[in-house]
């Protein structure tokens, strides 16, 4: 690892001002992507701003008809939260499929979303549940948040503070794990809420995206059979040694049906 200036943030304002003052800084949340990346010398920041001591960036609470998860909340905390298990059990279950127990004890929802790995699990949940991402500057609707592979609508130095999930009537998640890494080759999150049915897919494209054909079909009839004859196009999907674009297109349908009990 190349050396860098380690700085500890004492507040979110302090974190963003340290970031702006540095030449080429990175925020350190749980570090489950950043540290391995630094170890491989794939990145060389001048400064690393540690958010780990900001206790007020952690926590889960009910706000009206939504569940608010603060950015530094770990996957373990989401997975074991009584509130999330009772209100959005599919989200709690999804958090329990990320990485391994050591990763879940460190990795955070804010870090996961800011990184926007094409095979990350949270983005499809955030997109299907129509969550709102609150940063130090503004609120971003998830439809606008995921802009490409490892790319988001966040400005340079913009910090995610929390994610607010409207509680759905029903939701489900299923993924087909890569046999070695266990990252989703394809994952599908389906949510039925006050604004209709939303289906979001991860792992298949450059970043999570909505499957609008399925949404229309499931809005008519919320049943796996409603989509079983819809053939998904493989246009623009990822193709690699793990799965071809054609196979991923097939999995999108299968995982979505399984997510709603098919």
């Amino acid at each position, binding site marked *: *690892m*190349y*050396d*860098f*200036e*380690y700085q*500890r943030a004492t507040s979110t304002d302090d974190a963003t001002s340290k970031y702006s003052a540095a030449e080429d800084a990175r925020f*350190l949340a749980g*570090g*489950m992507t950043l*540290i*391995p990346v*630094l*170890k*491989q010398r794939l990145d060389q920041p001048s400064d*690393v701003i*540690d958010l*780990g001591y900001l206790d007020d960036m952690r926590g889960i609470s009910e706000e009206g008809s939504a569940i608010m998860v603060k950015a530094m909340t770990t996957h*373990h905390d989401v997975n074991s939260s009584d509130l999330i298990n009772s209100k959005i059990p599919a989200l709690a279950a999804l958090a329990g499929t990320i*990485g*391994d*127990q*050591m*990763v879940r*004890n*460190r990795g955070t929802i804010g870090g996961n979303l800011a990184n926007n790995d094409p095979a990350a699990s949270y983005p499809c949940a955030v997109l299907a549940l129509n969550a709102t991402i609150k940063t130090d500057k503004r609120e971003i609707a998830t439809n606008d948040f995921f802009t490409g592979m490892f790319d988001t609508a966040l400005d340079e130095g913009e910090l995610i503070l929390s994610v607010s999930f409207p509680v759905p009537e029903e939701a489900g998640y299923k993924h087909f794990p890569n046999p070695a890494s*266990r990252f989703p080759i394809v994952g599908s999150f389906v949510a039925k809420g006050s604004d209709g049915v939303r289906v979001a897919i991860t792992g298949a494209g450059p970043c999570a995206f909505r499957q609008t054909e399925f949404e229309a079909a499931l809005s008519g009839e919320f049943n796996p059979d409603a989509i079983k004859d819809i053939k998904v196009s493989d246009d623009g999907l990822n193709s690699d040694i793990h799965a071809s674009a054609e196979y991923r297109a097939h999995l999108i349908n299968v995982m979505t049906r399984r997510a709603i009990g098919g």
Partner: protein
Amino acid sequence: MPSIKMTVNGKEVSGEVEGRTLLVQFIRDHLGLTGTHVGCDTSQCGACTVHMNGRVVKSCSILAAHADGAEILTIEGLADGDTLHPMQEAFRQHHALQCGFCTPGMVMSAIGIVNDNPEPSEKEIREALEGNICRCTGYHNIVEAIDAAAKEMKA
């Protein structure tokens, strides 16, 4: 250079580290506690697993400076004198190792598994071992040891 202080196996320790120093390097190179192993460069193998503030973590993926003020437990802190921790004893009884390189991380992870789930099924143990790689045993005796230790730790 960051100055850090933490509690390791119940003892206060301190040191000066570089920003990039990993917790595992501090534990091994600064404190001389070489039971915590480094088995890979990619954060995948779990041989470096320790407990930080009561939760299992990969010490190869945490900056030493970030662990400032933390309570760390390593494999050296488990036994009470000559009496092994029930998990260590179960690994011995069930021959849950061959070369032994992954064992410290396995034992630390296994205690984390049982702390979170005091009565794990065989399937739950196998799934919870996701983050620890063993290249010798085929895992079977490790799973048996964790099952036996869970019963012992509950008793």
